[in-house]
């Protein structure tokens, strides 16, 4: 199980939780499983083809997954996967 950190805009889609546990041996599997359990998250971060939108940054253990192996980045027990969309608010 990995711990997925949920950004404020997606917390409603997971029942208000800030973190959610999800199984999977890669970052991609973890997110696929998360989106199956919480389809409202999938509707926001995945394209209809099941790919991650470009506007979603993913960090594995605080490292940018684009610089790791992206969705193939291996994860396991105790690892964290952070979903990070940009925020615009300032006022």
């Amino acid at each position, binding site marked *: 199980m990995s711990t997925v950190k949920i*950004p*404020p*805009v*997606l917390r409603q889609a997971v029942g208000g939780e*800030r973190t959610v546990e999800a199984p999977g041996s890669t970052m*991609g599997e973890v*997110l*696929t499983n998360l*989106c199956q359990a919480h389809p409202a998250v999938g509707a*926001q*971060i*995945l*394209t*209809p*083809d*099941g*790919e*991650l*939108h*470009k*506007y*979603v*940054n993913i*960090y594995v253990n*605080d*490292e*940018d997954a684009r*610089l790791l192996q*992206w*969705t193939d980045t291996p994860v396991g027990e105790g690892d964290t996967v*952070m979903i*990070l*969309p*940009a*925020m*615009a*608010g*300032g*006022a």
Partner: protein
Amino acid sequence: MSPSYQDLLAQAREAIPEVEPSDIAPRVESGDGPLIIDVRETAEWDQGHLPGAIHVPRGFLESRIGGVTSGTDQELLISCASGQRSLLAAKTLADMGFSNVTNLAGGFARWKQNNYPVEVPRILSPAQRSRYSRHVLIPEVGEEGQLKLLDSKVLLIGAGGLGSPTAYYLAAAGVGTLGLVDDDVVDESNLQRQIIHTTDRVGMNKGESAKQAIAALNPEVQVNVHPFRVNRDNVLDLLDQYDVVVDGADNFPTRYLMADASLMTRTPLVHSSILRFEGHASTFMPYDGPCYRCLFPEPPPPDLAPSCGEAGVLGVLCGVMGNIQATEAIKVLLGMGDTLSGRLMIYDALGMTFTELKVRRDPDCPSCGPNADLQLRDYEAWCAGVGSHDHAGATA
């Protein structure tokens, strides 16, 4: 018998060559003269000195000379008020092994009588020394740093949630000029967090309202109110007038506009964004570190990026994040410490955690990459466009 003062001067005169102001002035003016060491007291130095001179009071000569010279063979010209203290100082340096030391005959007085150029150091006024005394006490800031802040110009995009604390603290810190870009007026619902505004200024332009608060806090700060929205027609002119820009905007078109414009004008961009209990902060140093688009190549669609007006924000969060921005701006202006360049800091007020993510320059960045074709675009249309299309990344 012990030597008298006159004996000491005579001995020094035998050991140290003297130069007349007229001999050395051409070299000093052309900038290829010797290193000038002025050994007078601070109060005398503050009245003016030779151009380019370094101030080492006589009492600190032996202890400080090593730190300001490159070696004992460096050419040195020692000066004081009339040429006597400097003669003895020059003799001391010769005794310490300095082999190329001369004395300015007649000192600063004769130099000035002959109308050679004089530099008068800028110093804090007594009132400024008192107001900023807690800054002056910090070695990393000091009087020099405070003077630098007083000369600095910071542009704030937005005088709202983030802009309120940022502007307030930068004004208190003595940043000499603050530009406030905001076309909005103060609303009662702003006052839960926008602490620079007041109940009796509801309805007033936010820049104007902030200007009043700043005038009451620190009247010496020049506040430029820009009561309009920043756009691609005005942004470059605006940024050209400032040293640092602090982004506290509340929408993506403005944020991507500022990201690109800060690159084009090479203006450091201090970034923060906030929502509910969470804040992001980073500092983008143009072409030196990653830019905003290296971090976030595209904005999310509107339903994934609600504004604080739509989704709410903890008022106090603005204070935390706005002051992180103010801190970063001061560090950039003074060139001290490590900024958030290359790092995104995420503050979670609910968990009371700070998480730091590394941000790297993207070699394919469409804004700052080597092949980028950077030009200002219609950011409203672009943000709406990328949000409505499926721009796929890799498979999930």
